[in-house]
């Protein structure tokens, strides 16, 4: 593994240099945003893809990029970082590449073999600004000092075995969900439904931050109707359903008809299902509402017990919360913070802050060289 200096490494220590790179990164991202997004978005409708791309780029300002590097010892910044990109959320590698390029690293994007377009476009935009970023579908990660991997645990294990000298950070499969109190007031309920619909629509519910379920108190049926209306009003058609998901789609709809309720649109579904039937898998534009109720327990205990049961074996990424300030909502919020590495407001599930702890791991610290005494 190479740990040698390269031209510009010493620049990383100066705020000005970071600023210069941040400006070039930002310019590259603006260039990326200006080009047609169709062809980059893994089958998403172009309008939806453009909305998702805007959401992904919005937090990547010059100021936020520079701030992300504040206080970082330049000697700990690696010469090179590889990013193994998973198929699914087409914008996922942008913030990581932007961060590491701003830090002064040479960046190699290992693109998914069947969806390399965004990685290619991103690398082209960044390298056009003089930043050392390239994309490849090759599995050859030789010479990279640190590697960040998105994908299955098996992928991570295989890479760890192939490149034992690299500092490897593996982000395995995770899921997200929402926990909400349904407001009594129709206007507030519609607002909540609109925010939930945004979380569902973004990326057609792909990725680890897509809501696999919405655990809800209150008038869940009324919330379902509002959600149904919000999703029906989406201006963007859904990407064609993967044939392998069709059977599971029909199974859930049938289950909801037998045990709960179902509202179906041509390209979406809103289901009410008992929480015992929560499945940690999001289907494209399907919302599974799980009532937070258990008549055998007091209300607060019921909610807590439902949540802890649902997530007892699930690796959580994020929980979106919209809870009332009362004692039950407070207890649920506390429980949510215990369960998930990230909690956020409903509507921002798929647009996380930058920089952040991703699955509890600092985006930059995970690639840094060990510091003195570590």
């Amino acid at each position, binding site marked *: 593994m190479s740990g040698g200096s390269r031209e510009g490494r010493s620049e990383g220590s100066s705020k000005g240099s970071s600023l210069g790179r941040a400006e070039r990164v930002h310019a590259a991202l603006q260039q990326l945003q200006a080009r047609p997004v169709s062809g980059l978005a893994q089958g998403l409708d172009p309008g939806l893809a453009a909305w998702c791309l805007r959401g992904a780029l919005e937090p990547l300002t010059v100021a936020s990029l520079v701030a992300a590097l504040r206080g970082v010892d330049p000697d700990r910044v690696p010469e090179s970082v590889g990013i193994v990109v998973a198929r699914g959320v087409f914008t996922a590698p942008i913030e990581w590449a932007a961060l590491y390029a701003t830090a002064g690293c040479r960046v190699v994007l290992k693109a998914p073999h069947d969806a390399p377009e965004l990685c290619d476009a991103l690398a082209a935009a960044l390298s056009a600004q003089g930043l050392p970023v390239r994309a490849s579908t090759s599995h050859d990660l030789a010479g990279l000092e640190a590697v960040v991997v998105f994908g299955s645990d098996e992928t991570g294990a295989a890479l760890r075995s192939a490149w034992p000298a690299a500092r490897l950070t593996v982000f395995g499969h995770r899921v997200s969900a929402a926990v909400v109190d349904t407001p009594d007031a129709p206007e507030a309920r519609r607002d909540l439904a609109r925010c939930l619909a945004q979380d569902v629509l973004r990326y057609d519910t792909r990725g680890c931050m897509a809501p696999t379920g919405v655990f809800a108190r209150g008038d869940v049926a009324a919330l379902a109707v509002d959600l149904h209306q919000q999703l029906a009003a989406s201006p963007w058609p859904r990407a064609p359903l993967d044939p392998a998901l069709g059977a599971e789609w029909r199974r859930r709809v*049938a289950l909801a008809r037998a045990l709960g309720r179902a509202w179906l649109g041509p390209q979406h579904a809103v289901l009410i299902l008992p929480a015992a039937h929560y499945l940690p898998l999001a289907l494209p534009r399907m919302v599974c509402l799980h009532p937070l109720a258990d008549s055998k327990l007091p209300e607060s205990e019921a909610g807590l017990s439902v949540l802890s049961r649902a997530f007892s074996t699930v690796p959580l990424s994020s929980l979106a919360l919209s809870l009332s300030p009362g004692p039950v909502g407070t207890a649920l919020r506390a429980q949510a913070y215990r369960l998930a590495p990230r909690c956020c407001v409903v509507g921002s599930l798929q647009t996380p802050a930058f920089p952040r702890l991703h699955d509890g791991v600092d985006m930059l610290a995970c690639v840094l060289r060990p510091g003195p005494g570590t």
Partner: protein
Amino acid sequence: MSPQDPSLRRRLLAFIGGDGDDVEAASATLTDPAAARAAFNALALDLYAWQRANNPQYDAICADAPVPGSWRDLPTVPVGLFRDLDLTSFPVAQARVTFRTSGTTAGRRGQHRSLDTVLYDLGAGRHARACLGPLPTTGIGLVPLLPDSSLGHMCQSFVPGLQTFFDPDQGVDCDGCWAALRQAQQAVFVPGTAFAFDLLLATRGVPTELPPTELPRGSILMVTGGSKGRAVQLSEQALAASLRRSFPGSRVVGEYGMTELSSQLWASDWGQPYVPPPWLGVKAVDPATGRLLPPGEAGLLSFVDLANYWSVLAIETQDVGVVSQTGAVTLHGRLPGAPARGCSLTVEEALARVAARRA
């Protein structure tokens, strides 16, 4: 309709039982598609109406379905729902027979409950004899003979006293099975899964060094299960060749069935298409949309099984295949799992998590 509609049940018994339950009658029905299909269609629609009146969960699933004009329009129940729902056309507490799936993926096992196995036994025996001819009266099995195994139940209904060398906990007793096969004095029925036969052959020794095992004339090897995708299909071809080489003179036939169905399809020569009985409608649907596909196009297999009297007649499986104009089925294996969707879980992984939660 009453909880047990005697006239409908009588009609089903007559249709499935055939005229005198003999091979000729069964074969005639099999080769007279027009008459059989018309009778089948009428019975399917009547059974659908009866089940909706008596099976509240199926009725709820069908609540928004348009009135069906033919058996192909009947709303199907995804096979996975047998894990989650009772799906009985009688009060579930009264169930007298429960067949369970192996539950390898999702942990919780699917359950197919009924009040009796009259239609099951009648149809299974009739169609097997129609496709295979007279069955041997003795058997050496590589199948589980547990009370909740539909496969074991079927095999025992063919050959009462079937001796098995398979135990779900211990696996295959290959030595015992080989000894029994070599000592067989009369034609034997040898049912087993592809996996079990593969194990058996592996313990036989190097084929070129051992003479083949000639079973008594009229012996039948029945292979079931094991279609899990293209790679395994290739090994199925190898297994078929190996079985024929190892047991010259014996027939190697294929059976396709599942816990959630009461009827089976047979390939009288394993590797050839599977033939359904006249009381089992087969269609292929688009896996993504569930819409009917024309004959000859590969899709997800759906069945309308009149012998599923006590549960639901219309089932959507997770197996992919091609249905010919005559209804014969060429299996392509299981529906491939959805690819990993970025950093989220796959269907299989999600089900495994649920299984762990329920354990």
